[in-house]
């Protein structure tokens, strides 16, 4: 008796507490959902507010500012004047050329190297986990520390790289201090600092390739390169495409590495990217309208790539 009485009472008390005046079984369920949803939406609102404040609001402001000019504390609408001004800036096309150059180098070096490293890691039988950690370590290094390290490596007088070249009796380089080599030097440093993340993504994709495909290729007498070409690349095509587009979008917004390694402009403006030019207009020329207008140009180009990315990721689903 005692065993059955207690649950009954408990049920009654529970029902009485949750239903409330006029409450019923359906309302009880709804209230619980509301409470649960309130918490969820509470978190959601917090995240949305952060997005609004730090992402969307600045974007909208930037769009508005690109058609405005501020002088003597008074802001006025100037139509396309800012867009026209930045378009006719003598360094406008230099910045785009440098950005394209950075993106191209980043694709050749920053896209290919992590993929090759991932293939090598995937093929290893021993110490794979250990090497995976080693490859990922530079990503954990604070960017400024990585930059300082490379600045030392690149120093033409006492840097490590020229020391190695001298030891090998090869001609030394000016690295970051020559307009011919500054951009490629930045890309090499940037690739070293960020390739760990891409390598792990490629590695995960490689490990999803069914082993039978390689066995079948082996039976057909395929060599290593043939297996990579006929099995690995087709099987990871979607991941490669997505990463390629993501990389294009990311590298076209390059700022940190050129700013820290070459002061932004680099020798003879050889590393001045579009985003650095935006920074220059805003914080050196104090012309926020023109900076915003230049940002609009970049936005249009990136929108094309972002559209492609969205389309590709939808296909991959």
């Amino acid at each position, binding site marked *: 008796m005692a065993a059955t009485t207690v649950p009954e009472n408990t049920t009654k008390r529970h029902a009485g507490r949750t239903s409330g005046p006029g409450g019923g079984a359906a309302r009880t369920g709804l209230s619980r959902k509301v409470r649960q949803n309130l918490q969820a939406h509470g978190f959601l609102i917090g995240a*949305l507010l952060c997005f609004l*404040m730090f992402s969307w609001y600045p974007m909208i402001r930037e769009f508005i500012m690109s058609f405005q000019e501020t002088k003597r504390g008074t802001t006025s609408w100037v139509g396309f004047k800012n867009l026209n001004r930045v378009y006719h800036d*003598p360094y406008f096309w230099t910045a785009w050329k440098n950005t394209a150059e950075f993106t191209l180098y980043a694709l050749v070096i920053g896209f290919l190297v992590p993929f090759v490293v991932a293939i090598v890691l995937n093929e290893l039988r021993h110490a794979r986990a250990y090497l995976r950690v080693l490859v990922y370590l530079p990503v954990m290094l604070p960017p400024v520390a990585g930059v300082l390290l490379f600045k030392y490596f690149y120093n033409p*007088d006492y840097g490590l790289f020229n020391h190695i070249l001298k030891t090998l009796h090869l001609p030394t380089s000016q690295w970051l201090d020559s307009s011919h080599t500054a951009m490629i030097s930045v890309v090499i440093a940037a690739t070293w600092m960020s390739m760990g993340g891409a390598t792990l993504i490629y590695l995960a994709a490689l490990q999803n390739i069914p082993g039978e495909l390689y066995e079948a290729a082996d039976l057909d007498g395929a060599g290593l390169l043939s297996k990579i070409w006929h099995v690995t690349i087709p099987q990871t095509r979607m991941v490669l495409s997505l990463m390629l587009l993501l990389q294009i979008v990311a590298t076209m917004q390059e700022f940190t590495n050129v700013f820290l390694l070459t002061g932004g*402009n680099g020798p*003879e403006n050889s590393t001045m990217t579009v985003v650095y030019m935006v920074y220059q207009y805003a914080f050196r020329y*104090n012309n926020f309208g023109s900076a915003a207008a230049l940002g609009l140009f970049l936005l249009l180009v990136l929108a094309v790539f972002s559209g492609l990315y969205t389309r590709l990721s939808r296909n991959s689903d």
Partner: protein
Amino acid sequence: MSRIGYRRLVAVALVAGIGLTGAACSSSSDKKDDTGSKATSSTSSVGTPLDPKTKVTISVDCEPPTTKKAERQQWVDDVAEFNKTYPNVTINSKDAFPCEDPAKFTAQLQAGSETDAFYSYMTDLQQVLDAGQAADITDYVNEKTVPNLADIDPGVLNVLKDGGKLYGLPTSNYQMGLIYNRKIFKDAGLNPDQPPTTWDEVRQDAKVIQDKLGSKGINGYMDNSGGNQGGWHLVSEMYGVGSKAVSDDGQKAAFNNDETKSVLSTLHDMRWTDKSLPATPGLQWGDVQKAMGTGKIGMYVGAPDDIPLVVQQYKAKFEDLGMAPIPGGKTSLFGGNDYMFKKSASPDQIKAGIAWINFKYLTLEKGQFNYPRNKTDGLPVGLPQPFFFTGASKAKDTETKTANATVPVENFKSYVDAQVPVLPEPPNAQKIYTVLDTVMSGVLTNKGADISKLLSTAETQVNSLLAASQ
């Protein structure tokens, strides 16, 4: 609550959130003040000194950081002494080193979050006016509020004026010259009492230093090419040989001429023919100072306030350092620092700010001119800076400074004796320096640099920037 009602609640919360966020991000700069300043309303004319009974709080930046112990303590002591006269003025000090970071300064101006009395470079006036942040202090400043006003060089005050109105008070100034290492000169067999005065002599001496001491990692000369320092140095150097940066009306670039080309050709030859410059030029402020402080270069173009820096930060010795006039000696770029006053500050806050700046920076034997205290605190006394006093104030300042000198003043004799006529920095100076960085980096990093082309492109860019600023 029904599901629809709940959704409405969420929607209302979101809309409210958007509104609040928008309000929080509003750029109406005149409402913003992160310093918590408050003041009672002014009861007297703006032309009279602050009433000592007035209760007012002001925020002031550029308090020396705690790492600069002596300077910090002097600031604290000066605030205490100032409060003996003005017991009801609360100075809310904000420490900073360096006092101005250009990017941060620009952001502060846009947000209206600078302090009530804020430090700036003399070149910043147009930027501050464009941001609508500077108070017009013309009516506040007179011989009652700033007793030494008549003895401040009018040329210095003119830099802080726009349309005949005054917007700031100077705290220090400099004129550019050639800083050189006397010990390196001696070691290379050169006479440290006869520093070079023309670019040809600079090149010759730099080559001698390079030939004699290059194997020890010592270069004859060094220059900047980035961080606006390259442009600043190039303008100083073109002033030295008689060129200007912009036309007298400030509308057009005026540097694309033979004088500038001669300086750039000499620098190019020094870098690529004589190899008397290091392979890596200075990309940012501090690079050449570090090289001089650590005894790696013989000469560079700079201002006298670099000397205590290279001594304090890089352990150089005052007796090893000397200063000569700018090569060419036609005109010398002068610049400096000042304080401006926030436009939204109340009249009493502006008066209190002026009273503090006057006490700390413009009163002989007080604040920065308290030479016996500087001597006791181990700070250098005897450097040729600031240069803004004239007449009786200058004479008295020189007398006290000489009596308390802690640095070998004879090392700066040729710089002081040269009396090179000064020219202020060009309008929109920081923008011009950014463009001219490219010219310097071209010459110092590219053996095949086309100097004429570099200058022509820079001229087009500067003209475009100046047109946009009209």
